[in-house]
Each structure stands twice: as structure tokens, then as C-alpha cells.
């Protein structure tokens, strides 16, 4: 049947497609390096690009690493060396930075979205005219243009989402007589790969991926019900789909992390969030310090103990020659013994010596006697020789827990309670030896069975704003604030206090690299990314999801340092309205159709109905999964989060119009109306161009004219 289609038709399609593609490239790629300054979130993504260039480890909770890697790849192509400080929006790029290449890949993705939408409409079985309409809507959407033209990730996300849907539908629509043939499955694999990329760029992509899975499983369900196909064939097809659409994306997702972790092998500013073992696997930083330390902690070992939580800040168990105040500000009393705190900086006062309660000496025997799980020890503070102690006195900031102190005998019938039992929580065997860096240890107070815990509350001035350490009885099994790791470690050799102090001041040394497996690193990094909560605060341009539908809000991306030239994220209000209208119309129409079909009144033939349902699943479903989750989120949200959902509406509008025109309202007026709307979309696009491209500069009066909504913040420079 391939010969049946005249070649002329094919050529015409191509021309339209080529035309919109060219226009898309022109709108997205022209003058890409203007403005030659940091625009909005480039300041955020830029720092990660720099870190990639320097191969320095970082952790970003906003999304998986693929997006950052794509941006970094663009920078790499342009020869960016990572030497630029991304500190403020509007900072000029130096001539050494190739701005064009930094922005190239997102812009390319943004441009490719336009032909993809065209093709996707065709795969939804609508006409070329609808496809053209969808492409034009996307083409002339100012907000998408703005978002594509800078070093941001939304356009990349949208591109992969569209690609995933397009290739899946291509696979689905391909005649199944070719089911044995490979070309069909290439589309399925491409779809799986795009899904992997979607989830790899932003977590929001997960919802689009799930939608695709739902659509695919509906199709598969039909396949299972098809009794003309043999059981074996059905099984094979199902396995293929699961492999391509589930296994491939999952593997790819892990692969992005593999690349990320194997590429970033140097230590950097985000190290402290990770466990000691992880840090030790990075070049420089902790591994330099800890290289060659003895592995097994023994009686007489000199250690620093790092808290396993990185909230509010990573810190080490610390003490200093200052006592708790006799009375706190609120009148409560203390033991007035020596303060024990958690201190976020390396310091000689972080050193503690592990002592056998039965013996006096503070040096390591030969051979060393290792400390095992369940052993009872005393901890002696290296510089002051005070014993780590706890007792039934309320802690300074968390009065429901016990105070922890360096014991001083004031002869007030407050005996020393300085025995601690070592409880290794990640042990594999009951008699496991306490290991440097690897073991996570709880110190259980023998007298009260309370556990040494970082409460994380900063002490007032008397405690130098260091963090409070307490002993807590109500221990919860899952709290990592109870766990401590030995970070720096050496075997003590000096029995005399003076010598020991000198020893403590000298740096630790020696060599051996400790490796942890990729999976351990992956799990830790993934867990940290999902649980690290950054302080949520409102941004000047943040908005709530309900404001996006009516575009009550905008975002100022950039303002010229001396003139009124500026770039804003403002959508095309007319297309925005068209999108909302079609969403509403589709839902109304669907309800009417459904009710009438249930009563046996079939307004449209079954084939058309299927097409209509498929359109709704992809477009309305896509809008829902990309919008509703934001309503439930506690994050700081911006207008650009709405752009993926918006693309689905643009896909919906022309298709719905075509459906209405072919099956419901065959009026010429509809065509004329559609043309008029398209024209007005073009005109509004032109009107807002100065705010989209940042040139030409407008006068304050003209800017005032562009403020179509009172709630938009458009900036005027006072002259």
C-alpha cells in the first residue's frame, strides 16, 4: 500500500514540517548569546556546570543528574573551563565564556519540540492542518521561547517527553504485520530511552512517564484480550514492552548516576552532606586526611567523632575548657560541669581518646586490642582529659533529655557516670570490631541507657553558638542523629598529657584508598537527594499553581544594567486562553459523549471515538499529571513549572477543533474564527517580543502598555 500514496503529498508534508522547523530554529536560536549576562536560574545551573568542568562532586536535590550533564556537555563543547563565579543574576559573562554554546543544547531541544508536536499530532491520527496548528501554537508561545533560550532545563524535559510519546505512538500505530520486523521495535526502544531521559532530567518527568506507562498498559491489555493472537506471541510482546518501557528506563536512570559518580571524583563543598565513607572515596578532602589511618579502633585510639546527620550542619563531638552556666536564662540549673558540644569545624578540641574502664593507660597496646560491638568504654577528651559523662540533669536547650558534660567532681554528691557501651548499628556480626569511617556507632550510656545524640539546637552565647549534644532515653530506632562515626583516627602513643597534646596537634597521615561500591554510593546519593530539605522560603517571583492557569504571575529573568531592556517569562495570553478553553471544551464534550453513549446514542463512529479518547488520555491526562501534583507540593514553585502541562494543551487545541469541525459544527465560520485566532496569536507574539528577546529597549510608557495584568511585575528604571 506504500505506493498508493502519491509522492506529491509526502513532499508537501515535508515542506510544512521543514518550514515550521526552520521557523522554530530561527525563533529559538537567533541572537542566542544576547544578553551576554547571567539570566535568572542560569546562576543556579551554572554552578553545577562549573563543578562538572572541574570534576568536583556536588549534590543537587532539585533533580537527577542528566539535565546538569546535558548543560555541562554544551559548556564542554564551547570549551568552558569552569572558571566563572555564578553569584548574581545580571553579571556579565567574560569574553572567555562561550555563551552561545552554554545555551545551545536547551535551545536546540526547544526548537525540536515544534516539529515533534507536529509529528505527534499526526500519530494521534489528526490531519496535517491540525499538526500545523499545534506547531504554530508552540512556535509562537513566548514563554517557551524564553525558557528555551537560556541555560535551563524545561525545554530539555519537554523535548524528551514529546519524543517519548511520539515514538511510543509510532510504535503502536505501526502495522502489526511488521511485528517481527525490527523498525517497529526501534521506536519502542527509542521511547524507553526517552523515558529514561525524562526521569533523568527532572523528577517531575516521572509523572509523564507514568502516564505513558498507563497508556501502554491499556494498549497491552487490549492485546491480551485479542484472541486471534497465540498465547506465545502475546507473552513475547508483553515481555518486549516491559523490557523496553520499564527495564530500559530504570537501567538508564541508574546509568546517569553511574556517569555522574564516576565523572565527579574530586572532593568539594558538598562533601560534608555525605557519609565519611563516601567522602573518603573522593579525591582530596577527607581521603587526603584519612588515608592510611588504622582501620580498627582500639583502646587508646585517638579519634574524632562525626555525627551521622548532616542537619543542620555536619559537626564533630567537641568539648572545651568552659563549663555550663550555673543557671540558664530561664532560671533552670545545670551541673556546671564542662561543656560538650558539636562543632562544625575541624579543631584540636574534637579529639577524644578511647579508654578501657578497667585500666589507666591511654596508649595503644602492641598488638592493639580492638573495641568490639557491646564493649564498655570511657571517652577522654584529649586536650582537657575530662571524661565524657551524662547524668539525670536536664540538657540546656532540650530539657526533656539528659545533659552531657565533661565530668568535673565538685564534691556535691554527683558521682561520675562515664561508662558508655559501644553499639555498632550497621554491624554484620555480633562481635564486629569498631571500624574507622565505616562503622556507625551509638554510644549508650550505661547508667541510664540513654543514647548520645546530636539535638542540633544551637547553644546561646555561653556555648559559642555551637550545637547542643544530649543523651536521649526515648530513642527511636531509625533516627540517625544518634549515630557517630570515627573520622580521623590514630593509635595514641604518649602517656604524658603534654606529649599527647603535641601529638593531637600533629596531622594524621599515611596511605591507602578506601573504595565503596557504586551501588552503595548510588543509594546514599539518591537517598540524600530525596531527603535533603533546603530551607523553603518564598521567592519574590514564586507563585501558586492556581495562578498559572490564568497567568496571574510572571518572572523577571533579566534587566539590562543601565537601560529598560528586560526579559520576562510571560506567555502568549491569547494562546494561553485558547489552551484553557480547549481543555474545558474537551471535558464538557467528553462528559456529553459519555452520557449519551451510555444511553446508546452514538454521536460519532467507534473509530473516531477511539481517536477522541486517545487524544484525551494523552493531552488532558498529560496536563493533569503535570499540574495536579504541584497542588500537593510544599515547594517554592514558579510559573515555568507549568510549561510542560501547557504543551499538552497546545497539542489538544487544534486536534479538538478539527474533531469539532469534522463531526459537530461544519461551519465555515469556524475556519474563519480559527484563522482570526491564529492571527491574533501572531500579533500578541509580536507585541511581547521585546520582553521575550530583551530587545529592542522599550520606554517606560510602552512597558506600562504591556502590563496586561495588574499582578505582573514589570520593572521600570527610574531615570
Amino acid at each position, binding site marked *: 500500500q506504500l505506493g498508493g500514496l502519491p509522492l506529491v503529498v509526502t513532499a508537501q508534508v515535508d515542506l510544512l514540517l521543514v518550514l515550521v522547523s526552520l521557523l522554530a530554529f530561527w525563533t529559538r536560536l537567533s541572537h542566542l548569546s544576547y544578553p551576554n549576562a547571567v539570566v535568572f536560574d542560569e546562576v543556579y545551573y551554572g554552578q553545577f556546570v562549573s563543578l562538572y568542568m572541574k570534576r568536583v562532586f556536588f549534590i543537587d536535590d532539585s533533580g537527577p543528574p542528566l539535565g546538569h550533564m546535558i548543560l555541562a556537555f554544551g559548556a564542554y563543547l564551547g570549551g568552558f573551563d569552569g572558571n566563572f563565579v555564578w553569584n548574581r543574576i545580571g553579571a556579565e559573562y567574560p569574553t572567555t565564556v562561550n555563551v552561545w554554546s552554554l545555551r545551545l543544547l536547551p535551545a536546540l531541544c526547544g526548537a525540536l519540540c515544534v516539529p515533534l508536536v507536529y509529528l505527534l499530532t499526526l500519530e494521534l491520527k489528526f490531519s496535517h492542518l491540525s499538526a500545523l496548528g499545534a506547531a504554530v501554537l508552540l512556535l509562537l508561545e513566548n514563554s517557551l521561547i524564553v525558557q528555551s533560550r537560556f541555560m535551563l532545563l524545561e525545554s530539555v524535559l519537554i523535548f524528551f517527553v514529546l519524543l517519548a510519546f511520539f515514538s511510543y505512538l509510532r510504535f503502536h500505530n505501526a502495522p502489526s504485520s511488521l511485528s517481527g520486523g525490527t523498525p517497529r521495535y526501534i521506536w519502542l526502544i527509542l521511547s524507553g530511552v526517552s523515558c529514561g531521559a525524562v526521569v533523568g532530567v527532572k523528577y517531575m518527568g516521572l509523572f509523564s512517564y507514568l502516564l505513558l506507562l498507563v497508556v501502554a498498559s491499556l494498549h497491552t491489555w487490549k492485546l491480551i484480550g485479542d484472541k486471534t493472537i497465540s498465547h506465545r506471541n502475546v507473552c513475547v510482546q508483553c515481555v518486549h514492552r516491559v523490557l523496553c518501557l520499564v527495564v530500559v528506563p530504570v537501567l538508564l536512570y541508574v546509568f546517569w548516576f553511574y556517569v555522574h559518580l564516576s565523572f565527579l571524583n574530586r572532593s568539594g563543598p558538598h562533601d560534608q552532606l555525605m557519609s565519611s565513607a563516601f567522602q573518603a572515596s573522593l579525591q582530596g578532602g577527607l581521603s587526603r586526611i584519612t588515608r592510611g589511618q588504622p582501620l580498627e579502633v582500639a583502646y587508646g585510639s585517638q579519634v574524632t567523632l562525626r555525627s551521622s546527620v548532616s542537619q543542620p550542619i555536619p559537626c564533630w563531638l567537641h568539648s572545651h575548657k568552659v563549663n555550663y552556666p550555673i543557671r540558664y536564662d530561664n532560671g533552670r540549673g545545670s551541673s556546671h560541669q564542662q561543656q560538650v558540644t558539636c562543632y562544625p569545624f575541624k579543631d584540636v578540641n574534637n579529639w577524644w581518646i578511647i579508654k578501657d574502664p578497667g585500666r589507666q593507660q591511654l596508649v595503644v597496646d602492641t598488638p592493639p586490642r580492638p573495641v568490639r560491638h557491646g564493649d564498655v568504654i570511657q571517652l577522654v577528651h584529649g586536650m582537657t582529659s575530662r571524661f565524657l559523662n551524662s547524668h539525670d540533669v536536664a540538657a540546656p536547650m532540650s530539657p526533656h533529655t539528659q545533659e552531657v558534660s565533661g565530668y568535673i567532681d565538685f564534691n556535691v554528691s554527683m558521682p561520675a557516670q562515664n561508662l558508655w557501651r559501644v553499639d555498632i548499628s550497621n554491624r554484620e556480626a555480633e562481635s564486629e570490631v569498631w571500624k574507622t569511617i565505616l562503622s556507625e556507632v551509638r554510644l549508650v550510656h550505661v547508667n541510664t541507657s540513654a543514647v548520645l545524640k546530636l539535638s542540633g539546637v544551637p547553644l546561646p552565647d555561653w556555648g559559642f553558638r555551637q550545637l547542643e549534644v544530649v543523651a536521649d532515653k526515648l530513642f527511636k*530506632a*531509625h533516627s540517625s542523629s544518634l549515630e557517630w562515626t570515627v573520622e580521623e583516627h590514630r593509635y595514641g602513643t604518649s602517656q604524658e598529657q603534654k606529649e599527647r597534646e603535641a601529638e593531637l596537634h600533629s596531622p594524621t597521615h599515611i596511605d591507602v584508598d578506601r573504595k565503596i561500591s557504586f551501588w552503595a554510593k548510588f543509594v546514599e546519593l539518591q537517598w540524600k537527594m530525596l531527603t535533603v530539605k533546603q530551607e523553603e*522560603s*518564598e*521567592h519574590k517571583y514564586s507563585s501558586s499553581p492556581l495562578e498559572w492557569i490564568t497567568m496571574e504571575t510572571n518572572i523577571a529573568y533579566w534587566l539590562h544594567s543601565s537601560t529598560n531592556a528586560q526579559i520576562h517569562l510571560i506567555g502568549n495570553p491569547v494562546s494561553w486562553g485558547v489552551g484553557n478553553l480547549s481543555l474545558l471544551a474537551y471535558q464538557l464534550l467528553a462528559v456529553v459523549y459519555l*452520557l449519551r453513549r451510555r*444511553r*446508546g446514542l452514538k454521536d460519532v463512529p467507534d473509530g473516531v471515538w477511539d481517536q477522541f479518547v486517545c487524544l484525551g488520555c494523552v493531552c488532558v491526562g498529560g496536563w493533569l499529571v503535570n499540574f495536579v501534583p504541584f497542588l500537593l507540593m*510544599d515547594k517554592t514553585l514558579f510559573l515555568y513549572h507549568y510549561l510542560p502541562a501547557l504543551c499538552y494543551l497546545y497539542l489538544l487545541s487544534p486536534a479538538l477543533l478539527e474533531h469539532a469541525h469534522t463531526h459537530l459544527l461544519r461551519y465555515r465560520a469556524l475556519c474563519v474564527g480559527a484563522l482570526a485566532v491564529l492571527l491574533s496569536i501572531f500579533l500578541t507574539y509580536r507585541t511581547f517580543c521585546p520582553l521575550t528577546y530583551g530587545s529592542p529597549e522599550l520606554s517606560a510608557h510602552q512597558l506600562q502598555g504591556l502590563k496586561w495584568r495588574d499582578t505582573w511585575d514589570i520593572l521600570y528604571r527610574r531615570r
Partner: protein
Amino acid sequence: MAKAECTPKWNTLALRNRKTCPTPEKSFQTTFTPVSKDKNSQTAGLLAGGDTQSSNGPSGQFVARGSIESPSKVLLMLVAGLSFSTRLYKLTEPPHVCWDETHFGKMGSYYINRTFFFDVHPPLGKMLIGLAGYMSGYNGTFPFIKPGDKYENQNYWGMRGFCAVLGSFLPIFAYLIVLELSNSCTAAIIAATLLIFDTGCITISQYILLDPILMFFIMAAVLSMVKFNQQRYRSFTASWWFWLVLTGINLAGALGVKFVGLFVIVLVGLNTIGDLWRLLGDMSLSLVDIAKHFLARAFALILLPLILYVTIFAVHFVVLNKSGPGDGFFSSAFQSRLIGNNLHNASMPEYLAFGSTVTIKNLRIAGGYLHSHWHLYPEGVGARQQQVTAYLHKDYNNLWVVHRQQDNNSQSGNPDLVRHGDIVRLEHKETTRNLHSHLHEAPLTKKHFQVTGYGINGTGDANDLWQMEVCGGRKGDPVKVLRSKVRFLHRATGCVLYSSGKTLPKWGWEQIEVTCSPYLKETPSSQWNIEDHINPKLPNISLSVLKPNFLEILLESHIVMFRGNSGLKPKDNEMNSKPWHWPINYQGLRFSGVNATEYRVYLLGNPVVWWINLASLGLYFTMVAVASIATQRGFSLGQQRIEHSLVLVRGGGLLMLGWLLHYAPFFTMGRILYFHHYFPAMLFSSMLTGLTLDILFRSADLLLHPPYSYWFQRTGQLLLLFSILYSFYLFHPLSYGMTGPLAHEPGSAMAGLKWMDSWEF
């Protein structure tokens, strides 16, 4: 009409119905599965027999029918007896306040004393507790100050007994629901056993809490809904109406106790939509009939519950007419209703004057009083000046003094009145700082400016000046106390004093943020009224404040409740339970006692029961997947299998939906969550377990031949029963009280039972 159609089928199928009234449910199902009609004669016995083996001829069926009828009654009696005895046993132990009894007992007392209070839950549950207390001779004098307080001679058994009786109905309802959904006594008895011997369900039923009342209404609503579904071929008969209306009443009850009742409303709503959808597809019904069906449901399931719900509130407001601890949450107008409140028949100077001491209340509902205290904004949050917040409680720190721009201390004669457009300076009475604003970001609402207390003894700078405007007033209008809506415009920056409604973090004592908004739109958030007004130089005039009407009160109290609910954020040191902890029984709640010497009660589900439930959820999904793939692929299944898969998909689906609706929403909630929030979901989960395991046992003949499969089925049931009973024997001290050493110490009665480290008994 449907009836007429179905009658012939009834005749052929009458023998299959095991109930005295032939349930048309069966015949309905057979219309969907035409296979069953053909094989009817062979399979009818199997169906009716359930767990009997009779399959030969009509006489066997009659026997089966009779034998099912009486066991189900006997079993029901047994369930009821066990349920009441386990719940009422040791009811008055421990004789002190346990856990949240301190709240709900106290609120019950408030009803008896007719004192107004504020709570985040709707009033029905507490009203019933109060009523039960009143009826049993409790006089409302016990203060319920904190958990652990001894009751001494108070009659607290009535309130506990009331909750326990309602809690005892849960296994009975579960039995009836599962029986209705699966037509199998075994399934029903499994579900009821799981609930009867669950330590968690026992504990939560035995104290003065809202949960047993809530769960009673939830289960009653589900039961009446299921019964109503059975009546589908007898539209508009008395029993049809009875179950329909009863569903509506129970829905109102559930919602009236806690907002969790919304989930069961959604469940019933979805079921009703499905029902209407089925009716719509029934071409034998005319559109008028369908409209009738729709209207009947709309009346009974929407309008009736709404009316009842509003009535509950009406009673609440009528009963509570004395001023109490909850006044400050409500608007000035609302407070004037309450006897004993200072606004009730208030008498104070009518017009605001310079030199007056006032409290200023935000007009936004639950907006709070303008407040300040001896604490500074922390470092990094704007300027380090004194905090200004909005506070919901009445407090001397809410007092402000109105001054002129330059205080010339003209103490002579009558003070001048403050008029629209006057420039004022507001001095905080306690700390003598002025209300101040400047171009720093507000702590939470970054688009607004920060408001602070600045200066000392009233001497500040130009940023302390505010222009006072009466909304809708003209220049020269005086400011009426209570009645005028005023706003405060900051002179220097032009912004307006605003209460954002966001709760400040711990440094701000979880009070509400006050900002200065540059957006001058008139909203209640930026409008304030003068509530208390003290000026010894002016004559006091009796004010009759505009009394709000009932709908306004209703709306206001709901907004206050929702704010209160979302304001219940987890605190740092408090135990924070996560929803994923719940189904695995990860951690319980201490109801009473911590130490070895105390009488301890620990709310924790019977781990065996809960883990069986968890496993059954997985099992259910597997079984449904296998069954539906087999159907979709067109494998020919026996009649019995088709029946089973229908029960799984329809009955099980309903229960699964109930479980999801009562569990999944908690994942999105930002408020603080507790273990006991899972209990309504746990009821659904247990019923689903009964249904699933029963069908699993009966499907043993897929693998084994008849005599063995029958033995397998029996062994499985006995094993299940035994493990539940034995685990209850092991864990019963959790509910009925433990003393002596804790479980991980030697010599404890619970030694060896601490199967998870996270359990705290």
C-alpha cells in the same frame, strides 16, 4: 420494571439464595455471566453450599440453605459476645487519664458545663462523649489537666463505656459487611476474628477518644451502603429507602466526628456514581426514572447529611453559650454571643481616642490580635528588632497604646478622638516599643515588608508613623470601637499592615506572621478592628455589637477549624509517625505509663493480625491480576471460579477502595500524623483479608485433588484461627495493661515479644 424482568430468573434461581428473602443480587450477576445460567443446575449447590460439599440435587440445596441460615446467626451472636467481652474487660483500668482523654474528656466536660472551646474536629464526637458522661452521672468537674491524673471518685466509666460499646460494634459490622459482599460465612468470620483479637482495636476502643465513635459511623455507613446495594432491584421500596437514608445519616455522623469522615463520603460517593452509571446504561429505564433515582440519592446522600451536619453545629452553638478558652480564635462579633466574655453586653468608650489602650484584631478569620513580646527577630531574618506577630489567645502582650505623631502630653481635658486619616503611633504597652516597618523582607512573605517593634519609651523614628483609615470612611470620621474596619497605612513606604496567616517557625513561638503589604487591595487580611478599648477619661457606653447570623458563625468556625488543622505541624522533638510506618505496625503510641513502675498501656496492633493483613493486600493484587488476565485472555473458567473472581473484583474492589481512600491521603498531608490515624484503613484491610483468604483457601482445588483440597482448606482456616488466638494471648497485656519491667529487661512479662526494636513496651 427491572423486577418484572427478573422474576422468571428468580424462579429458576430461587433455590440458590441462601437468605430468607431471595436476593436479586445473584440474578443480576448471572445476567452478566451467561455461562452461569447454563451450568446453573450443576453449580447451584456448590454456590449455596459455600463450605459444604453438597452438590447433588435439590434436596442437598435445601439442607445447605438451612444449615447456612442458622450458623450465620449463631456466628453473629458469637462475634457479638466476644467483641463486647474483649472491649468491656478491664474497662476502668487504669483509673487515670490516658493519652488524648486529656483533650476529649475535657471537651466532654465543657459540654456539661456549657463552656465555649475551640477544637480542630467537628463537635459530634465530643457532644456524644459529654452526653454519655452526663447520663452516667459525671458532673463535669474533673479538670483533665494532663495524662496520668487520677480520676479518684469521678464517674468516668460512662464515657469510656460508651466508646467501648461503639467500638464493640466494629467486628459485628465487619462480619455483616463481608457476609454481604462475599456470601461466605468463613470470610466474614475471618474478618471479624481479625478485628476482635486485634490489640490495637481493643485499646483504641477502650478510652475516651473520638476514634471509636468515628469508626462506628464509618463502618455503619459502609454496612448500610452495602445493604442498599443489595436492594438494587427493589427500587423505592421501604427497605431501599431505609438503607439509603441510614447511609446518609451515618455519613453525617462520620463527618460530624472528624474530618476523616470525608473519606467514607468519597467512598459512598464513588459507589453511588457507579450505581447511577449502571442505571444509566439500563435501557429499560426511562430518563425520568433515572432522574428519580438521581434525586433520591442526592436527597439522602447529600442534602440529608448536610442538614444533619448543620444541625450538629446548631446544637453545638446553642449548648455552648459561656465564654471559655476558645474565644480568641473567633471574631469580635462572635465573642459577643458568649456569656462571660468581655464583649458580651460590653461597655466601653464608643469612639477611639488618643491615649487609649486597645487590642487590635485582624478581620481575617482566625487572624489573631496584633501582638509583640520581648523577643527579637533572629539573625538573618530582616533587621534584628523586636518581633511583631498576630496571636490567637488573649494576652496582656496584645495591648497597644494609641499616640499622636508628636506626643505633647496634653493630659488636660477630654482626649481628642482619632479620626479617619489621622497619623498615629502605636506603642506596645508592655515593651514600650513602637509599631515599625521598613524596607526589609518580611520573614515568610518575601514580597512584603517586615514589621517590628522599635524605639524605646515611645521614642522612635519616622518609620513608626501609621495613617489610620476607616474603610469606606471619609476624612474626619471617628473610629468606632468594634464596628469600624480600619487599616494602617505606613507613612514612609505606603504599605498596609497585614496578617499573612502563615505560622512563624519556632523562633516566633508559632504565632502568625504580621507584615506590611505593598499591595493595597482591601482584603480582610489588611483590615483590623479595635476590640478592647480602655480609656479612663471617656465615659463607657454599653454597646450592642452586631450579632452574627448562624451561617456566618458556621462558616467562621469551619475556617478556624481548617486553619487549626493545617497548623498542627510536627514539632522537632515530638515523635513524628510516617504513613509508611503504619501498615507494618512499626511503632505504637504510649497510652499510659513509661517506666517499669507504672501501669502501662501501649497502642499497638496485634503484629500477627497486621502482618497477615499486609500480606493479604499483596495476595489480593496477585489474585485479581491472575483472575482478570485469565478472563481477558478468554480461558474457560469454571462457574465457581467466575463467582470467586466476581467477589474478588466487586466486593474486594470496594474494600480495597475503602482502604486506599482512608490511607493514601495521609501521604500528602502536612499536618502531624499519629499511628491511630491508620485504624479506619485497618478495618477495611481486615475485611479485605477475610474475603481474600477465604477465596484463597477455596481455590485450593486448583492445585490439589478434592479430598486433599478440602483438608487443605480446613487446615488453613484452623491454622489462621489458632495463630490469631495465640498471638492475642501473647500480646493481650498491651491492651489490658502491663506492670513490671520493660520488655527488654529481664523478668518482664513481655520478654521475647519485642519483635521490632521500634516498639516501646
